């Protein structure tokens, strides 16, 4: 009975090519959309957390103001003595990289490029996990005297020098020229989507004197010695800064100390929310696909009811008719699910490469969307048939 019913189901699928195709299409679209979206979202989350862990887990970032964005300007900046105090008074601190930045246009011959000028020390390279692709870092004399030297990122090199070696050339920034002493190894996009290589690094003092015209430091990046407790350092740092900034006991901090774990949590929770959002959008398309299937099945219900009547009249048992319709629905839904998964895998791999995020196969979402779409196919394919097969054969035959 099973074999014969299978034969009948296959004949019915082949006979109604258009209906079968549309049913499969509805499932394919839904399944492919959900899997692709969620896979890409997972890839993005993974790439963010990878990048954060590449920053190192033993870092602290200190910024003035209690929060980011507008309002933080009100809080006083840090000064060079702050950097020295942290270095000398907290034992577990390995490096302190001060940072001040300013947007400026760099010019080389006929080329110019607007970029970010970061003023810092050699600690900047260690604390930021930067490596040099060519040339050297700053010398102590250059740092101390605030000489006009700079290390440039790959994007800046590309815009100003093309493929040429920039080391030894002079670029002009505002009114002064500056010798390129080093080239940073390319890092690509940051977790926030910024181009990390679009940067020019100069000694702190150079930027303070020639560009910002003040002793202000915008940010401190602090690396903690291996094995030391980050939380302990964070507490010491907070106490020290409160003392140096004369913050009374009942007043709040006017600066903020973040560790990379915290940043990681913030960023990954953001991308997770985005993944869920994308998943929700895709789920709508799964639903729309399901409604499409429902429409096809309901439109064909008259024809199918008469077909059921004919089958019953020539001696089919109710359960044989139902089994046939169930097999049809399962075959079409599974086919749609498999094609959808194949399509989603291909699309995810290609899109992940284009977006520069890793491709991660998530068995859970594959199974979930497959089961959901199969359920839609079976429910809408099978239940109208069940109603029809329960009719008197003559009523099914006369169905208008």
């Amino acid at each position, binding site marked *: *009975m099973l074999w*014969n019913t299978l034969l009948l189901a296959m004949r019915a699928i082949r006979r109604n090519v258009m209906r079968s195709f549309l049913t499969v299409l509805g499932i394919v679209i839904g399944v492919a959309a959900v899997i692709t979206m969620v896979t890409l979202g997972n890839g993005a989350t993974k790439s963010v957390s990878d990048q954060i862990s590449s920053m190192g887990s033993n870092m602290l970032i200190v910024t003035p103001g209690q929060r980011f964005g507008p309002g933080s300007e009100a809080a006083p900046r840090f000064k060079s003595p702050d950097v020295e105090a942290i270095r000398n008074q907290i034992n577990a601190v390995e490096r302190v990289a001060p940072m001040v930045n300013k947007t400026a246009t760099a010019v080389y011959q006929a080329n110019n490029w607007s970029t970010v000028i970061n003023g810092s020390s050699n600690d900047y390279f260690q604390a930021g996990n930067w490596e040099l692709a060519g040339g050297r870092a700053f010398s102590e004399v250059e740092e101390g005297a605030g000489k006009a030297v700079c290390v440039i990122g790959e994007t800046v090199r590309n815009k100003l020098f093309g493929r040429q070696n920039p080391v030894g050339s002079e670029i002009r920034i505002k009114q002064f020229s500056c010798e390129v002493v080093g080239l940073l190894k390319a890092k690509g996009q940051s977790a926030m989507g910024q181009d990390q290589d679009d940067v020019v690094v100069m000694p702190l003092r150079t930027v303070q004197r020639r560009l910002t015209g003040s002793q202000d430091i915008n940010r401190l990046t602090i690396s903690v010695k291996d094995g030391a407790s980050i939380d302990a350092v964070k507490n010491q740092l907070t106490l020290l800064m409160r003392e140096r900034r004369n913050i009374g006991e009942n007043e709040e901090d006017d600066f903020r100390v973040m560790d990379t774990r915290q940043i990681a949590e913030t960023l990954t929770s953001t991308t997770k929310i985005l993944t869920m959002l994308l998943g929700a959008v895709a789920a709508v398309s799964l639903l729309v696909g399901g409604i499409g299937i429902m429409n096809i099945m309901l439109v064909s219900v008259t024809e199918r009811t008469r077909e059921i*009547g004919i089958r019953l009249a020539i001696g089919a*048992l*109710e359960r*044989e008719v139902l089994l046939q319709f169930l097999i049809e629905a399962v075959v079409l839904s599974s086919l749609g699910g498999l094609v959808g998964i194949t399509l989603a895998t291909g699309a995810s791999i290609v899109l992940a490469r284009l977006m520069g995020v890793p491709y991660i196969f998530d068995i859970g979402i594959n199974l979930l969307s497959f089961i959901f779409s199969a359920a839609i196919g079976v429910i809408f394919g099978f239940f109208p048939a069940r109603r029809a097969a329960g009719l008197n054969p*003559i009523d099914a035959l006369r169905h208008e």
Partner: protein
Amino acid sequence: MSSEPLIHLSGITKTYGSGQAEFQALKGIDISIEAGDFVAIMGHSGSGKSTTMNILGCLDTPTSGSYRFMGAQVERMSRNQRALLRRHFLGFIFQGFNLLSRTTALENVELPLIYRGEPAASRHGAARAALKQVGLQEWEHHTPAELSGGQQQRVAIARAIVTRPAVLLADEPTGNLDTRTSEEIMELIATFNREHGITVLMVTHEPDMAAYAKRVISFVDGKVESDTRNGEEA
């Protein structure tokens, strides 16, 4: 020869709806039909002839009364038992042909054999033979849409007789066909009755078609009005 007739209806009634809208389509039908007979059931629309036919074909159930088929009490059978009775003993021809659309003539004729569980080889052979008997051996791979009305009815006949049923039930088999084609179809049905001993029950309202039958039962208003043998008396 058993004393029991092939088919025996007694006191069959059929009521549609309930309360105010109640309509009694059959008001107590008693008919006996012997094996090998060719019976035409005549009457105007609403006379109950089609309802009787559907009950005889186990496509519908009577409200009350007794229906014995080969001695078995049909009104006590379950849905599945009635389906098996149709599968093994009955063949149907309808006014609207009722072939599966987009399905070749051969596959349509094969269908009852599939439900009987016949193996593929004998199924194909039997279906081809049945199509040949109705003169459509050249048309086995055509779908109903590619066939004329007469050809579609021939396919339906082939589908009905491919299982060699005891009874062939034909509900207005020529109702959708022109006169010439109708005659051909009636010849075909008469041949199966004559040469293969298949009992034929046919509903029609055309006296020309009823003339092919051996026995004519006329229905008026849910009751049998007359029951005559052709050739005995007009």
